[in-house]
């Protein structure tokens, strides 16, 4: 299995080197999927860093945003209004989640918090099911972006470029925020050692609120980008992606935001490449290949591919 993946990677690497048109398309698609996954990974990793909480309900935020977009396009609203609605819905939900669920559970164990976010995910999903039905709705206002543009003889869909650029801009802004502002400093301090940071005057509720808010902004951005490529919005929208990103974040290394982001990007990229490289008779087993890889990496590097490795066993 790993041999197959490795050969796939080598083959596509060579392909892009040779400028092979078809493989370049696969490459660009894979990079754009990786970029979207990286944004989700940042959303999950940021909240984990500050609150030590794995937010399984992150995918449902994206789902809610996607439904907002679908609702707007149903009513024939202008694109901008739809995007504004999407951001409003996702941010309101994020803040409500933080206030009602995350904050009271902040001192609890990781397992309790994780199960609580399951419950929230379930709740949002079943509300969507009740509201929109299992078949969901379609968001069509931005499908224009699926049109290809020709660059150097290669047809590339506009959305892939938009996704890559958007992700790069978002990440750059986030890096600036974390490194150049005092709230960023507070967040970095909190993610290193929450209780010491509090002793030194970092306000816990503010920091976790801002982390959740940024994660929400990213979720809304992802919702906009994803609905262009997958316009049919159902109650399980983005669920599969969230699971993959969670796996990617852990594979990358959850303790640092950078390694988590790289992990998210990597799993999106590999998933895109494998999807392009596997013959169609085997493409239905794509999830098995991906999860198999995840297990392999975790066995070799349990702390994450990109983390600075510590001893596996904590000393007393």
């Amino acid at each position: 299995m790993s041999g197959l993946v490795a050969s796939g990677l080598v083959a596509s690497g060579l392909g892009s080197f040779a400028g092979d048109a078809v493989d370049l398309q696969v490459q660009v698609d894979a990079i754009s999927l990786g970029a979207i996954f990286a944004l989700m990974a940042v959303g999950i990793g940021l909240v984990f860093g500050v609150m030590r909480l794995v937010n399984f309900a992150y995918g449902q935020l994206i789902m809610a945003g996607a439904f907002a977009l679908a609702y707007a396009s149903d009513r024939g609203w202008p694109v901008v209004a739809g995007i504004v609605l999407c951001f409003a819905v996702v941010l309101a939900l994020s803040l409500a989640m933080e206030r009602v669920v995350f904050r009271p559970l902040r001192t609890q164990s990781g397992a309790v918090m994780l199960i609580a976010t399951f419950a929230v995910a379930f709740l949002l999903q079943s509300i969507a099911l009740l509201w929109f039905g299992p078949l969901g709705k379609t968001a069509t206002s931005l499908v224009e972006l699926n049109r290809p543009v020709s660059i150097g003889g290669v047809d590339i869909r506009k959305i892939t470029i938009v996704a890559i650029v958007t992700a790069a801009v978002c990440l750059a802004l986030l890096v600036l925020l974390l490194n150049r502002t005092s709230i960023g400093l507070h967040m970095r301090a909190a993610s290193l050692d929450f209780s010491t940071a509090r002793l030194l005057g970092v306000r816990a509720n503010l920091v976790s609120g801002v982390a959740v808010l940024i994660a929400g902004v990213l979720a809304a951005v992802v919702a906009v980008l994803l609905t262009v490529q997958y316009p049919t919005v159902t109650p399980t929208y983005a669920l599969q992606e969230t699971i993959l990103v969670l796996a990617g974040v852990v594979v990358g290394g959850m303790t640092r935001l950078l390694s988590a982001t790289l992990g998210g990007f990597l799993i999106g990229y590999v998933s895109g490449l494998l999807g392009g490289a596997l013959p169609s008779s085997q493409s239905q087993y794509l999830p098995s290949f991906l999860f198999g890889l995840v297990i392999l990496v975790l066995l070799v590097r349990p702390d994450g591919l990109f983390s600075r490795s510590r001893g596996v066993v904590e000393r007393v």
Partner: protein
Amino acid sequence: MRARAAAVELLAPVALVAAAGVVGGLVSQTNQIYFITALISVSTVVAIYVFVGNSGVLSFGHISFFAVGVWAAGVLSIPEQEKPATMPYLFGFLSSTTVGNIPSLLIAAAVGGVFAFLVGLPLMRLSGLAAGIATFAVLGITNNVLRYYEKIGPGLNTFSSVPETTDVLQATVGAVLVVVAAFAYQRSRLGRQLRATREDPAAARAVGVSIYRQRLWAFGLSGFLAGFAGGLYIHFIPINVDAVYLDLTFTTLAMLVIGGATSLWGAVVGALFVSGLDSLLAEMEDGMTVLGVTIDLPAGSRIVVVSAIMALVLIVRPGGLTGGREVSLGGLGRRLRPAQAVAK
């Protein structure tokens, strides 16, 4: 004194299960479904508890062992002449073999146990989030393979013509057996060693306990029981691959955490509480009259209410309904077990 305390710890959950069984035997045919579902949930949740509760390591993979139990029992007990209709691509030996009720349950358990053991061999070296995600990956792979590999089962089709042998009696006996097995394990030398690693890994290692080996035993046993529960389930209702994936994983884990993940009593209480709540709401969706007031919830609202209550219970009582403690007569003096052990 210790023997009496032990007897209480075993008898309380068994009595609760038996009571559910007796009531289930008395109610009307239509309501029996709820009780059988609840009793199978007890088997499933207790199976998960054997590993998660005793080791303190969260596993998302147990529904894969449940699923292979479903597949083993389902495929093997469908009558030979019915097999080509839903499973035309089956391996020769599977399509030419049909086994009875009890053997199929035992085979389901064995398949679940062996699968869990094999998966555990590499995976039990992991802990923390890595272990959680790796077990999740196992679930993803199992589901993906069962969904598309039609030589070992119906693929995307729903199982049909599986003899429906799981009645209230079998579900009750099954749940009691699982509870007794879980109890016997946690009182055994192996179980105590594993619980020691949960409370303090470093100290447990210092006195010579192998964390890896103890987790592996528990994982295998837990997979065995989960496979058995899967066997019971497929002999109860026809299901397809979607029924043994994420939803079931979350529901069963939520039952465990809501009951209190670190005690057998918690696992049983959680399973019965959530199942009971779910059944009640299902009735309300059909319209139910309580004290002259007719409650009629819109269809589909029960999952909304159940998940909202799950979140609420966790916020108000993060240790679960039982606080993760076993039953004790005295109550005082025995409350040593911290509720936050399922953290790493």
